[in-house]
Structures are given as structure tokens and as C-alpha cells.
């Protein structure tokens, strides 16, 4: 929701982006 503190929002965004990168790098379609 909108009340999520900024520090958590930033951490969350970073976590989700890194997760996406990791998934792309281990996906068989990436090769």
C-alpha cells in the first residue's frame, strides 16, 4: 500500500529486480 516506508520500498524494489536478473541468468531460454 501507499504507506509502505520509503526504505522498505527501495529495498523491496532492489530485491525484486535482483530476483528477476537471477531468474533470467539461470533460465534455459537465456542461452
Amino acid at each position, binding site marked *: *500500500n501507499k504507506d*509502505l*516506508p520509503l*526504505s*522498505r*520500498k*527501495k*529495498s*523491496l*524494489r*532492489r*530485491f*525484486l529486480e*535482483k*530476483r*528477476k536478473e*537471477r*531468474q533470467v541468468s*539461470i533460465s534455459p531460454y537465456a542461452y
Partner: protein
Amino acid sequence: GESHSFNQDTLQQRLQGLIDNARESWTYAIFWQSSAVDYTSPSLLGWGDGYYKGEMNKPKTTPSVTSFAEQEHRKKVLRELNSLISGSKMPENEAVDEEVTDTEWFFLISMTQSFVNGNGLPGQAMFSNQPLWIAGRERLLAAHCDRARQGEGFGLQTIVCIPSTSGVVELGSTELIFQSSDLMNEVRVLFNFNN
């Protein structure tokens, strides 16, 4: 030693530097930020920032120990968080196909936690101004602390809490890591804020 001004924006780099350069294989690092304005006021430790590195040595083929329903729940939450952050609804078939691991889930849950006046592992470390180094599943269970037990339940074998001037640095690993003074010194240097 040299001290730095506290800066929210550099927390991530410090946490990342701390575990990316370590010899040991840490799964995550969290900075619990203290709300105390001085040494005499009661303090609340809340989420400052965190860096999730993951389990480097874990084989990709490890079968899931979580139930199908639990995985579906985690994926649903992740999809919702994705939408919340990106501002648009994420299609069902996009991303979050991969299993949400126990340590990823533990890291996410941590964002919702805070510790008052000496409670929990970070609170105890802050209150006593002494590092806490708990290595071994039995020791985590014997710590009589919800966070330690929860961490053990999600596959952690080592949890460390090191107090600094403005909060507590917590590190966790699925591997068994014994106490290292190098790491504690590194934390004291990197997180020695002068306010």
C-alpha cells in the same frame, strides 16, 4: 577509527560490500536502524536496508520442501509486491515462476519486523552492546528467541548480530560459519557513523 556520516543511500553499498567481499558465504545482510535519539532513550530497531545475496552453493535441482499451497501463497504475495512497486498489475504468467526459496521468504518477512528494548536477536545485541554469533541449528533453537527459531525453520545455520553506532548489522547464512574477528572489525569500520 574513521567515522562516516549516516547516509541512508550508502547503506546498500556497505551491506553489499560486506558480504560480497567476505570469505564466508553469507546469504543476506540487514541493517536494523535504531530510532533512539540518544543513549538514554528507549530504542526501536526497524528495517534500515537489506541485501539478499542468496545461496551460492545450493544446487539448482534441490527439491522443494515447502508445500504446493505455501509456494502458491509466496508467489501470490511476490506478484502483489511487484505490482505495488511497479504500479501496474503483473500478468499471471510473467515472472514469479521460480520457486520462492525459504531464505528469500525469511528476508521478505524481515522487512515487516521491528524490535523493542532488547527484544529479539538484534535488540539483544543493541541492548548489551555485544555481538551475538549463533552458529549451528541446535544453538539457534536454544537461543529462546523467535527470530532465531524462525531463521532455523527457514534453513539458516548461522545468524550474527553486530551492534554499531546507529543500529545493528545482521548477517545470516545457510552454512555453518564460525566467529570471525575480521568480519566484526569490518562491520565496525563500515558502520561506524558519527551521529
